[in-house]
C-alpha cells in the first residue's frame, strides 16, 4: 500500500526539478529498449553521466529502468523453463543495471556504522584497483574493448583471450576480471566463455597462479583507482550482442537441462570467481569472500529489478495501477522512481509530505544494506537531500515541521535539514517579496503565532491530570487497564465541558435572580436529590421563564431560550466530538480490511513498552509465554474437526445461553417497569423520604448482579476464542443496561410526564440523580468490599483462585451506563454533569487504589485499542443516539408542566423557539436569522436535498472503498507473486552455489597440481564461507528493488 501512496505522491509532484534526472534515465533507457541490439554508445553516455556523481549513480542507475525497459521480458521471465533466450536481447540491460553498482562502491567507506561492510568496502576497492592495475599494465588493453564490441566473432574474441594471458600474466588477470563483469552481467555470457568448449579457455583455469603472483602487489596499494573501473565497464557495454551471437552455438549444451540454463552456466563461473579471491585470501585479507557476494548480489539485484516490469507487462496488479494513473509513461517513471527509493533514501521522503513517509522504506531497506545511510552531515547535499529540501520548502510551516519531525533520522540531521530549509525559505521569500516590507511583518507574525501556539499547548499539557498516576498504572498493568482510565478521563473531560457550559449560560444567570430557599436541609437529600434540592438550581423546576434584565437598558437574557440552546449546544458538541473520536479510532484500528488472523505475530511484536514495573514485566513475560503456548496448541488442534453431535451440542448450549440471558434481561426490564409503575402508590403509602430510593436500589442491584451472572455463562459456553467471549458478554451487558434505561425512559416520558404531577421534570431529574448516585455508591461498595473480599478469598482461603483480573469490559460498561444517564438527565437537572464530574473524579482514585490492592495484570493480551473503538462506538450508538431520541421526544412532543420551569405555560418545549422566531421576524435587523430558520432549519425541502446529497456522497465513497478493496487485494497478490519470483531466484542461486562448490572443488584439484603448498588451505577456508555470505548479501540486495 505504501507503494501506492508513493506513486500518488509522485503524481503530485510531477514537475519537481529533481525528477528530471531519473526521467532522463528512463528515456534513455527506453530508447535502448527499443533497440536491444544497439551497441554501446548509448549506454556509455548514460554511464558517464551516472558516474559523475556517486549519489546519482546510486539512485539513477540502481533503479535503472532496466526493469521498465523490458516489455517483452515478463512473459519469458515468468516461465522458468526458458533457456538462454532471456539473456540474449536484454543482456545489455542487465549488464548495465550492474554498473551503477560499481561506481557506487566508493561510497562504501562512508558506511562507518555498519561494521559488516568494512570488509566489503575494502575488497571493493581492491577489486577496482586490481582491475585498474591490470588494465594499464597490459598492453593488450586497447584491443580488449574491440573484440568485445564486435558482435559476431566468437572465435576472434577467444583468440586474444587465450593467447594473451599466456603471454602476459598480468593481462590474464585483467581478463579474468573482465569475466567477472560478464558473469555478473548475465549467465549466458559466461557460458560463452565456458572453458570446456574453448581450448584456450582451459588456459584461463591455469592462470590464477601467475596472476596472483604478479598482480598482487600493485593491486592492494592503489586505493585511488576506483574510478578507473570505468574501463572495464565500457568494455562490456560495447558488447551487448556478443553473448547472443556467441551463445547460440553453445546453448545446445544447456538445453539438455532446460530448467536452469544459467545455473548450468554458472557451474563454470566459480572458476572466475574463485581466482581473484585467491590472491587476496593469501594476503591474509578477506577480500575475496566479500567480493564474491557482491557480484552475486548484483546478479540478483539486477534480476529482481526486472520484476516490476514483469508485472507491468503482465497487466497484473500493476497494470491496474497503470490504468489508475492514466498515463503509462508517467507510471513507468513513477515505477522507476519507486525503485530508486532503496538507493537514494531521501527521495521518497521528499514527496512524502506528511502522512505516509516512504522514506523509512527507502532508508530501511537499502541504507544500511548498502552502507549508504550515513550520508553523515552532508547527505542533504545529495540530490535526494536536495529533493527533500525543495519539497519541504514548498510546504506550509506546520506541515514542514511535521515532516521534519517524522524523518527517521538522527537529531543532528533533522536540525541541519531544518536550518537549510529555513534558510532557503527565507532566501526565497526575500527573493519574491524583495521590495515588500509586508514579508517581514508576515514572517514575524507567523513566528509569533507559532510561539504562542507552543506556549498554549504547553499550558494545556501542564494541566493534564494524573499524568504520574497513569504512568504508574501503565507501568504495572499495561496499556489495556490503562485504557479504562483513559476512557474515564475522557468522560471526565466531557463532563467538565458540559458543566462549564451549563454553569456559565444557565446557572449563573439563574442565580442572579434566585429566590430564597425555604426548605429544610437534612442530609439525606444528597442521596435522594429531593427535599431541599428540589428548589435549587439543580433542577429544571427552579428556573424562571422570564427574561432576566438587571437595571434599565441593560442587556436582557431570555431564560427559556438560553436553557434550550445551552443544552442543545452541549449535546451537539458532544455529538461531534464523539463522532470525530470514533472516526479517528476507526481509521486507526480498522484500517486493514483483512480478516484478523490468529495474530501470533502481534503477540510478539506488540510488547507493551509502557510496562516498566519489574514484577509486572516478569508477570507479563510469563503470561505471554502461556499465551503463546495456548496459541500454538490452538493452531495444532485446529485440524481437529468436531463431530456433528458436538456441533449440535455446542449450538444448543449457545442458543440456550442466549435465550436465558435475553430472558433475564427482559425479566429485569419487566420488573423495573412494574416497580416504577407501582412506585407512585408505594410512595404515597410510605411517607419516609428514603422510600424513593427503592427503585434506584433495585436497578443498581440488577446492574450489579446480572452481569456477573452473565459472566458465569462462560463456564458452559466455552468459546474457543477469548475475543468471542468478550464480544458476547459485551453484547448481553449492553443489551441489559440499555433496555433498562429504555424502559425507564418510557416510564418517565409516558407515565410520569402525562400523570399530571405538579412538576414532572423535576421529578424525573430527581429520579435520574438517585439512579446515578446509587450506581456510584454501588461501585464504591463493589470496589471496597466486593473486590477486597474477592482478594481475601483468592489469597487466603482458596489460593487456587489467585488474584482476580481487572474486568475492563464490565467497568467500562458501567461508565457508559452512568454517562447515558447524565446525558438524559442534563435537561432535567442541569447540574448533573457536575455531579458526574465529582463521581468520576472519586472513581478514578477508588479504582486506582482498588486496582493496586486487589488485582493482577490481565493475563490475556487484550486488544485495548480495538476495544476502545468498540466502547466509543457503544457510547455513541445505543447510548448517545438513544439520549438524542429521548430528548427529541421530550422537546417536540411533551407538554411542559404548567407552573414550574422555564417553559411553563407553553404547549410544547419547542414552542419557545417558534415564538422567538416570530418576535424576531418583526424586527428588521434579525431578518437573516429568520430567513435561516425558515429556509434551512425549518424547511423540509432543504433537508430533503441535504439528505439526497449526503446519500450520493456516501454512495460514491462506498464505491471508492470497494475499489480500494479490490486494489488492496491485487496489491497483496502482487506481493505474493514477487515473493514467488524471489524464491525462484533464491532457489536458482542455491543451485548455483552448489555448482560453484563443485567447480571449486575441481579447480582446487587442478591447482593442487599446479602448486602444492600454501594457499590451498586459505582457499579452502574461503570457499567454505563464501557461499553463505554471498547468499545472505544477495538476498538482502534484491529486496529493496522488489
Amino acid at each position, binding site marked *: 500500500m505504501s507503494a501506492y501512496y508513493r506513486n500518488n505522491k509522485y503524481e503530485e509532484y510531477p514537475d519537481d526539478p529533481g525528477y528530471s534526472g531519473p526521467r532522463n534515465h528512463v528515456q534513455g533507457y527506453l530508447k535502448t529498449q527499443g533497440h536491444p541490439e544497439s551497441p554501446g554508445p548509448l549506454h556509455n553516455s548514460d554511464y558517464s553521466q551516472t558516474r559523475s556523481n556517486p549519489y546519482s549513480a546510486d539512485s539513477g542507475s540502481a533503479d535503472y529502468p532496466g526493469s521498465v525497459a523490458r516489455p517483452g521480458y515478463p512473459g519469458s521471465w515468468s516461465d522458468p523453463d526458458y533457456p538462454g533466450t532471456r539473456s540474449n536481447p536484454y543482456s545489455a540491460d542487465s549488464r548495465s543495471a550492474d554498473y551503477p553498482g560499481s561506481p557506487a562502491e566508493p561510497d562504501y567507506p562512508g558506511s562507518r556504522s555498519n561494521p559488516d561492510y568494512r570488509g566489503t568496502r575494502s575488497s571493493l576497492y581492491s577489486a577496482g584497483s586490481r582491475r585498474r592495475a591490470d588494465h594499464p599494465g597490459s598492453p593488450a588493453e586497447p584491443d580488449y574493448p574491440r573484440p568485445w564490441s564486435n558482435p559476431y566473432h566468437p572465435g576472434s574474441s577467444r583468440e586474444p583471450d587465450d593467447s594473451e594471458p599466456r603471454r602476459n600474466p598480468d593481462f590474464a588477470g585483467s581478463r579474468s576480471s573482465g569475466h567477472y563483469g560478464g558473469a555478473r552481467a548475465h549467465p549466458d555470457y559466461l557460458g560463452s566463455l565456458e572453458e570446456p568448449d574453448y581450448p584456450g579457455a582451459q588456459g584461463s583455469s591455469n592462470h590464477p597462479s601467475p596472476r596472483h603472483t604478479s598482480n598482487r602487489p600493485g593491486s592492494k596499494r592503489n586505493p585511488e583507482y576506483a574510478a578507473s573501473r570505468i574501463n572495464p565497464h565500457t568494455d562490456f557495454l560495447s558488447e551487448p550482442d556478443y553473448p547472443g551471437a556467441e551463445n547460440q552455438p553453445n546453448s545446445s549444451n544447456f538445453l539438455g537441462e532446460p530448467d536452469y540454463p544459467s545455473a548450468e552456466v554458472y557451474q563454470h563461473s566459480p572458476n572466475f570467481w574463485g581466482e581473484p579471491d585467491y590472491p587476496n585470501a593469501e594476503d591474509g585479507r578477506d577480500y575475496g569472500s566479500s567480493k564474491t557476494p557482491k557480484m552475486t548480489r548484483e546478479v540478483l539485484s539486477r534480476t529482481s529489478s526486472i520484476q516490476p516490469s514483469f508485472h507491468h507487462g503482465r497487466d497484473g496488479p500493476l497494470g491496474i495501477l497503470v490504468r489508475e494513473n492514466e498515463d503509462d509513461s508517467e507510471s513507468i517513471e513513477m515505477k522507476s522512481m519507486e525503485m530508486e527509493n532503496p538507493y537514494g533514501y531521501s527521495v521518497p521522503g521528499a514527496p512524502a509530505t506528511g502522512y505516509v*513517509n516512504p522514506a523509512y522504506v527507502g532508508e530501511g531497506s537499502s541504507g544500511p544494506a548498502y552502507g549508504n545511510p550515513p550520508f553523515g552531515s552532508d547527505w542533504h547535499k545529495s540530490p535526494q537531500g536536495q529533493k527533500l529540501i525543495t519539497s519541504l520548502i514548498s510546504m506550509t510551516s506546520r506541515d514542514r515541521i511535521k515532516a521534519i519531525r517524522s524523518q527517521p533520522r538522527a*537529531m543532528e540531521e533533522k536540525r541541519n535539514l531544518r536550518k537549510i530549509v529555513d534558510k532557503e525559505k527565507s532566501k526565497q521569500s526575500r527573493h519574491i517579496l524583495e521590495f515588500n516590507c509586508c514579508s517581514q511583518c508576515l514572517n514575524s507574525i507567523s513566528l509569533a503565532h507559532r510561539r504562542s501556539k*507552543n506556549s498554549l499547548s504547553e499550558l494545556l499539557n501542564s494541566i493534564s491530570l494524573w499524568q504520574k498516576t497513569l504512568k504508574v498504572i*501503565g507501568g504495572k498493568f499495561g496499556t489495556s487497564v490503562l485504557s479504562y482510565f483513559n476512557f474515564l478521563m475522557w468522560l471526565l473531560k466531557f463532563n467538565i465541558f458540559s458543566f462549564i457550559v451549563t454553569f456559565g449560560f444557565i446557572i449563573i444567570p439563574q442565580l442572579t435572580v434566585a429566590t430564597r430557599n425555604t426548605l429544610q436541609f437534612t442530609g439525606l437529600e444528597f442521596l435522594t436529590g429531593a427535599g431541599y434540592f428540589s428548589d435549587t438550581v439543580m433542577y429544571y423546576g427552579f428556573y424562571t421563564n422570564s427574561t432576566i434584565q438587571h437595571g434599565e437598558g441593560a442587556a436582557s437574557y431570555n431564560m427559556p431560550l438560553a436553557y434550550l440552546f445551552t443544552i442543545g449546544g452541549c449535546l451537539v458538541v458532544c455529538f461531534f466530538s464523539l463522532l470525530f473520536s470514533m472516526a479517528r479510532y476507526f481509521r486507526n484500528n480498522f484500517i486493514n480490511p483483512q480478516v484478523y488472523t490468529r495474530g501470533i505475530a502481534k503477540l510478539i511484536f506488540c510488547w507493551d513498552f509502557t510496562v516498566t514495573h519489574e514484577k509486572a514485566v516478569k508477570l507479563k513475560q510469563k503470561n505471554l509465554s502461556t499465551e503463546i503456548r495456548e496459541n*500454538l496448541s490452538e493452531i495444532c488442534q485446529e485440524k481437529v474437526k468436531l463431530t456433528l453431535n458436538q456441533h449440535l451440542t455446542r449450538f444448543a448450549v449457545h442458543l440456550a445461553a442466549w435465550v436465558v440471558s435475553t430472558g433475564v434481561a427482559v425479566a429485569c426490564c419487566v420488573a423495573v417497569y412494574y416497580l416504577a409503575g407501582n412506585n407512585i402508590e408505594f410512595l404515597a403509602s410510605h411517607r419516609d423520604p428514603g422510600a424513593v430510593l427503592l427503585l434506584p436500589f433495585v436497578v443498581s442491584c440488577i446492574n450489579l448482579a446480572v452481569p456477573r451472572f452473565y459472566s458465569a455463562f462462560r463456564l458452559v459456553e466455552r468459546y474457543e476464542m477469548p475475543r468471542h467471549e468478550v464480544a458476547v458478554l459485551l453484547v448481553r451487558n449492553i443489551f441489559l443496561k440499555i433496555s433498562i434505561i429504555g424502559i425507564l425512559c418510557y416510564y418517565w416520558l409516558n407515565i410520569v410526564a402525562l400523570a399530571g404531577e405538579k412538576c414532572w421534570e423535576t421529578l424525573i431529574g430527581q429520579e435520574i440523580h438517585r439512579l446515578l448516585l446509587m450506581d456510584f455508591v454501588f461501585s464504591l461498595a463493589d470496589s471496597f468490599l466486593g473486590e477486597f473480599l474477592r482478594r481475601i478469598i483468592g489469597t487466603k482461603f482458596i489460593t487456587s483462585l489467585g488474584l482476580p483480573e481487572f474486568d475492563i469490559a464490565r467497568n467500562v460498561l458501567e461508565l457508559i451506563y452512568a454517562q447515558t444517564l447524565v446525558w438524559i438527565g442534563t435537561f432535567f437537572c442541569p447540574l448533573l454533569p457536575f455531579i458526574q464530574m465529582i463521581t468520576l473524579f472519586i472513581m478514578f482514585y477508588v479504582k486506582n487504589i482498588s486496582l493496586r490492592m486487589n488485582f493482577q495484570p490481565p493475563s490475556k493480551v487484550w486488544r485495548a485499542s480495538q476495544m476502545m473503538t468498540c466502547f466509543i462506538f457503544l457510547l455513541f450508538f445505543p447510548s448517545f443516539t438513544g439520549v438524542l431520541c429521548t430528548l427529541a421526544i421530550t422537546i417536540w412532543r411533551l407538554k411542559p408542566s404548567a407552573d414550574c420551569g422555564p417553559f411553563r405555560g407553553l404547549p410544547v418545549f419547542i414552542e419557545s423557539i417558534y415564538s422567538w422566531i416570530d418576535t424576531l421576524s418583526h424586527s428588521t435587523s434579525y431578518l437573516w436569522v429568520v430567513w435561516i430558520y425558515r429556509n434551512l432549519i425549518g424547511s423540509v425541502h432543504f433537508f430533503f436535498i441535504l439528505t439526497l446529497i449526503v446519500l450520493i456522497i456516501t454512495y460514491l465513497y462506498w464505491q471508492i472503498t470497494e475499489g480500494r478493496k479490490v486494489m488492496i487485494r491485487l496489491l497483496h497478490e502482487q506481493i*505474493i507473486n514477487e*515473493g514467488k519470483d524471489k524464491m525462484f531466484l533464491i532457489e536458482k542461486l542455491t543451485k548455483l552455489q552448489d555448482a560453484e562448490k563443485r567447480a571449486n572443488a575441481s579447480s582446487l584439484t587442478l591447482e593442487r597440481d599446479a602448486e602444492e603448498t600454501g594457499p590451498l588451505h586459505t582457499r579452502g577456508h574461503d570457499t567454505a564461507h563464501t557461499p553463505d555470505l554471498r547468499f545472505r548479501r544477495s538476498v538482502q540486495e534484491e529486496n529493496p528493488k522488489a
Partner: protein
Amino acid sequence: MGNKQTVFTHEQLEAYQDCTFFTRKEIMRLFYRYQDLAPQLVPLDYTNCPDVKVPYELIGSMPELKDNPFRQRIAQVFSDDGDGHMTLDNFLDMFSVMSEMAPRDLKAYYAFKIYDFNNDDYICMWDLEQTVTKLTRGELSAEEVTLVCEKVLDEADGDHDGRLSLEDFQNMILRAPDFLSTFHIRI
C-alpha cells in the same frame, strides 16, 4: 525552570521543538532527566553543544528502561554508533519516537530496527528467536520458539522470502492497532 535560558539558547530550544514531538517544558524535563543520569558528566550549559555521551549502563538503569527486555536494543538503535552510549540528541530522539505523538510509520520504522538484532535490515529467523526468548524470559522450549517463529513468518511474511522486511513489518503493524499505544514510553 528558571535557568532554562542558560541551558539552551532560544534557537536551540526551538530547533528541538521542531525536531521532536515535545513541548519546551518536556524538553527541559527530559534534559534534567538526562542530566540526572550522570550529573558529573553532563554540564548544565548546552549553549555551546558540548560533546557528551552518557554510557549505556546509566541509560539502561533509567526506571523507564530498566526492566524493559529490549532496553539494550533501544539504546543501540538510537545511539550514534550503535554502542548504546547516548548524547542528549539521541536521548531526545529516543523519547520523541516513543512518545504518544509520533506517527505510526516512524514508530514502526524504529520498532523494526529494534527487533532487527543483527542489523541486516531484515527480521530473520534468528532475530525472531532472539525476540521470543527475550519476551518469554526463556520459558518456552527450543521447539516452541522455532514453531512460534515459523508461525510469525508465516503470518507476516508477505512475499514469502523467509524473513520480514520493513514493508512486511509495517503491514503487520497496520493489523495490530495496539502497537501505537504499546510502543510508547511515558516520561
